[in-house]
């Protein structure tokens, strides 16, 4: 690690924290394209990457950025890009390519008001379904969502570790406020941080089959220039990596593996934060900037004698369906405040089964206020 990595307390905004997180995580390649509210990540990295002898490049569009980081990943570097809604949509096809070729990489989506050009400078949580279902075909994906500047730092590192572990593109679904607000960030010294690198093949080039998975369903990854002469393709392929586009057996084995790779390891991937949940009769399920208002709402509810609790999702995908299912059984109702027209709430409803779920939608420049959430809690009775 280069000495130039930051350690100790800093006063940063979310974008800068994310950038520094990537550096600490060992990100060696960033390709991006200017888009509010994620531009600061690119600007900061364009300054910092060279200082650490690493590569920053600004591509001609988001499609190119996404393709470039897959290329860099296959050249042995940890690679990241950052964008917002419109860019995220452009990147979907190549995210699919990254999934299919199991290329570890991190995509930061600092969400803004949508759809289309929408409200570039305003917050929004309207890309969460696109994160799971954006690209065509079935596949597993990991998406984390920070609620503070510190978490922008921590979760970026976490995203790299997960993508390297499971050889899957990992998304960091922040929103404009988390990206642009300034807070204190404490950067632990490098030795304190857990940094994970991808599994390398243990066999000789003749025996190596690039997509033969280990038991965790994740194949060890050779990179370009290591003499393995392997082939990777977006076409349906078998373990040899060569296209087998007309074999249904190969298709089903591959696609199922790509899905199972995440589902089977979901418990190791999923992270949540619980507050006053053990005896809660009403649970607020929230994530991102909205969760902060939800926290104060829950506290106020407790002051008003309502046994309320907060479940803050840190992992959006894979979704903690069972966990929420269990919580739902022991509560009277669930309140889901989201800055969209109802996206994550569908998953909560599916997980909660009979337990009533009240959805609190909010669009525009202002996230939910604690009072609005409190009213919703009161309304559950």
């Amino acid at each position: 690690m280069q000495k130039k990595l930051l350690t100790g307390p800093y006063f940063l905004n979310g974008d800068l924290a994310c950038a520094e997180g990537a550096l600490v995580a060992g990100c060696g390649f960033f390709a991006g394209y200017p888009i509010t509210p994620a531009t600061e990540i690119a600007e900061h990295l364009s300054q910092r990457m060279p200082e650490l002898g690493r590569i920053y490049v600004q591509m001609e569009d988001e499609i190119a950025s996404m393709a470039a980081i897959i290329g860099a990943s296959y050249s042995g570097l940890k690679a990241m890009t950052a964008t917002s809604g419109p860019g995220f949509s452009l990147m979907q096809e190549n995210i699919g390519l990254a999934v299919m070729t199991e290329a570890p990489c991190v995509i930061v989506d600092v969400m803004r008001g949508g759809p289309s050009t929408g409200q570039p400078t305003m917050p929004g949580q309207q890309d969460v379904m696109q994160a799971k279902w954006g690209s065509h075909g079935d596949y597993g994906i990991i998406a984390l969502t920070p609620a503070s500047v510190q978490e922008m730092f921590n979760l970026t590192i976490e995203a790299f570790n997960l993508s390297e572990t499971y050889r899957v593109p990992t998304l960091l679904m922040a929103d404009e406020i988390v990206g642009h607000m300034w807070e204190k960030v404490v950067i632990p010294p490098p030795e304190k941080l857990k940094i994970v690198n991808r599994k390398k093949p243990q066999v000789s080039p003749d025996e190596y089959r690039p997509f033969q998975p280990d038991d965790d369903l994740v194949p060890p990854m050779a990179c370009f220039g290591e003499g393995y002469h392997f082939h990777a393709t977006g076409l349906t392929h078998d373990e040899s990596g060569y296209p087998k586009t007309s074999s249904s057996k190969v298709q089903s084995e591959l696609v199922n593996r790509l899905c199972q790779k995440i589902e089977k390891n979901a418990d190791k991937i999923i992270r949540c934060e619980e507050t006053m949940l053990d005896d809660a009769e009403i649970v607020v399920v929230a994530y991102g900037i909205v969760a902060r208002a939800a926290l104060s709402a829950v506290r106020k509810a407790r002051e008003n004698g309502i046994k309320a609790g907060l479940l803050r999702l840190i992992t959006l995908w894979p979704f903690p369906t069972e966990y929420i299912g269990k919580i739902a059984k022991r509560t009277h109702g669930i309140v889901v405040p989201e800055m969209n027209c109802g996206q994550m709430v569908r998953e909560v409803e599916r997980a909660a089964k009979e337990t009533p779920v009240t959805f609190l939608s909010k669009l525009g420049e202002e996230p939910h206020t604690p009072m609005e959430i409190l009213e919703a809690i009161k309304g559950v009775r």
Partner: protein
Amino acid sequence: MVLETAHPYSKYLRAEMMPHIWCPGCGNGIVLNCFAHALDELKFDLDKLVVVSGIGCIGRTAGYVNADSFHTTHGRALAFASGVKLANPELEVVVISGDGDLFAIGGNHFIHAARRNMGIKVLCANNLNYGMTGGQQGPTTPLESFTTTSPYGSIENPFNLVHLAAASGSTYVARWTTLHVRRLTQSIKKMLQKKGFSFVEVLAQCPEIYGRYNKMRSGLEMMSWFKRASVVENFTDPSKAEISADKIPVGEFVDVEKLSYEKMLHEKISKINERAMEMVK
């Protein structure tokens, strides 16, 4: 037939993938042949080679070359290749793709990669239409020629790829047809040794579809069109190098030296990095 002696270029091909899927008489086979021949003449270190190809008939080339290879989404080969090259400049990154992939959907990535003088070698098999999907009109389909999506004759002015590549800033631009195998091989050799962004266009016949729709049903007929019409005009004005029914200007059009993007980038990074290190001390 003595079978144990292998084909001279077999060591550059993935035996398990042979024979390839291309139609009888398709020019792509010859492009791959010349590429292998060029690698052979240069005694190329296959461990250093990365072949990237996009979507299309020629897109399958990455699968056939016995080196690290990647088959990207449609049009994105050059963007992907940029990532590979910048990440590890020691790698020799060659993009082998088609006229549709590189100049229609991938056009934006082509002109920018060329503008930046990215150290990538582009070998474009121009078969004048979208072959893989059944012969639709493409960015280089000649005026008034017939394809499945221009049944009344194409009314679009095709790209002059040589002019486009030269104008975008590539340091080496050449065009040959699949009949000029000897000079095509030399051009590929020269391209592989160039530092900056280099581009070789190969007019590759597509007798099965384009030929069928345009009165050149067999590979031989398209080859004789190449022979009749091609005129070697080295280093003439690229803007005059349009392809027409009776004239196919071929040859080397641009051969200049320009500092490549990755070289500049890594030089700048090492300078900044040193300065940063001093400041840290």
